[in-house]
């Protein structure tokens, strides 16, 4: 049983990485528009998504040159967010919330301090949170609806 969980997590990581790469270069650096962020709703369906998303984010950031700092901070943010989404799994509409907050705060800070983006900290955070919200609610929600009807695949 453990093997199945491990492999499921690995495959989720792979899908996340693929979804990020497929939309490059928009998915990195300043813009951070990641379709893969819609996948952050997965913990609602299986706890294997928690390590899965963490590792997916790790890989997606490692392959990107811009993403080195992203690697540590972004991935941790994703891990926290995934755990949060898992906790909210009984409340459909709250599931996309943790990633929006976690990424908004962490990555917003990162853009401000590390990349030296020329606007206020709050603006950075809101900018990231906004992009995140579009992915998480805009794509994530329909994805939740679609997957909800096919829950069996997660067994």
């Amino acid at each position, binding site marked *: 049983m453990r093997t199945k969980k491990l492999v499921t997590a*690995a495959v989720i990581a792979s899908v996340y990485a693929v*979804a990020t790469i497929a939309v*490059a*270069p928009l998915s990195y650096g300043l813009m951070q528009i990641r379709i893969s962020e819609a996948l952050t709703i997965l913990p609602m369906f299986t706890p294997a998504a928690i390590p899965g998303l963490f590792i997916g984010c790790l890989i997606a950031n490692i392959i990107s040159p811009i993403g080195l700092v992203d690697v540590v901070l972004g991935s941790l943010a994703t891990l926290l967010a995934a755990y949060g989404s898992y906790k909210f799994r009984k409340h459909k509409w709250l599931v996309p919330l943790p990633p929006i907050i976690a990424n908004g705060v962490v990555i917003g800070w990162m853009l401000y301090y590390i990349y030296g983006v020329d606007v206020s900290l709050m603006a950075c955070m809101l900018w990231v949170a906004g992009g995140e919200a579009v992915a998480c609610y805009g794509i994530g929600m329909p994805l939740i609806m679609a997957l909800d009807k096919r829950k069996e695949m*997660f067994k």
Partner: protein
Amino acid sequence: MIRDITLGQYFPGNSKVHKLDARTKIIATIMFIVELFIVNNFYGFALATATMFMIIKVSKVPVRFMVKGLKPIFIIIIFTFVINVFMVDGTILFHWKFITISYEGLYRAFFMAARLILLILGSSILTLTTKPLSLTDGIEKLLRPLNKIGLPSHEIAMMMTIALRFIPTLLEETDKIMKAQQARGADFESGSVIHRAKSLIPILVPLFISAFRIAQDLAMAMEARCYKGGKGRTRMNEIKFTRSDIYASVFLAAFLAMIIGTRYI
């Protein structure tokens, strides 16, 4: 399409670089990446670039393969370049209507672009000269000390290797699915943001189903070969440090010293 990604793609060979212990290479790559952020002038870059090309030469990996790795990031490089050229203020080099290019901007643009390119080449060397299995071993051994604080190093390394291995497969699958849905009249390019978001469902759902099917098959295959996790698991080829690794480490230390040194030139 978005197919040719050099990551996780091992290029077989027998060079000195190939033979180095995975741990040496991983640490070297991390150090290189950090050093690229320490570098702050032309000398540093020249040193890093020269060293990089020397290593590529020793690894005997053909340059075209390395170039392959740059492809996906090409646009980011251009983007970074452009943003810096036009957005950074300073001594004006060129001014026309609302377009201003400053010396600082140009300098920074080259700087950032060069750094990006070196970053990718550096990480590519790692994946090109190290078998995925060796990489996992390396990561696992490096993370072992963290077992004490509850980090399952083996499982993480295993997940990473499997994930990496399936990226090209899933990329191809995504491509196929996209084309199949396009053949049915799906359009991902036009329409409102909402429309485009919804149009991703016909891609994401089949992709998930394929992914989970792969997971199931793989898990069964692993268990059929008695995979029980990391405990007590041995290896056919235990990785060990050799003399080459010692030479490499000395070289790395010297390189680090020189890089730091360039900051004072």
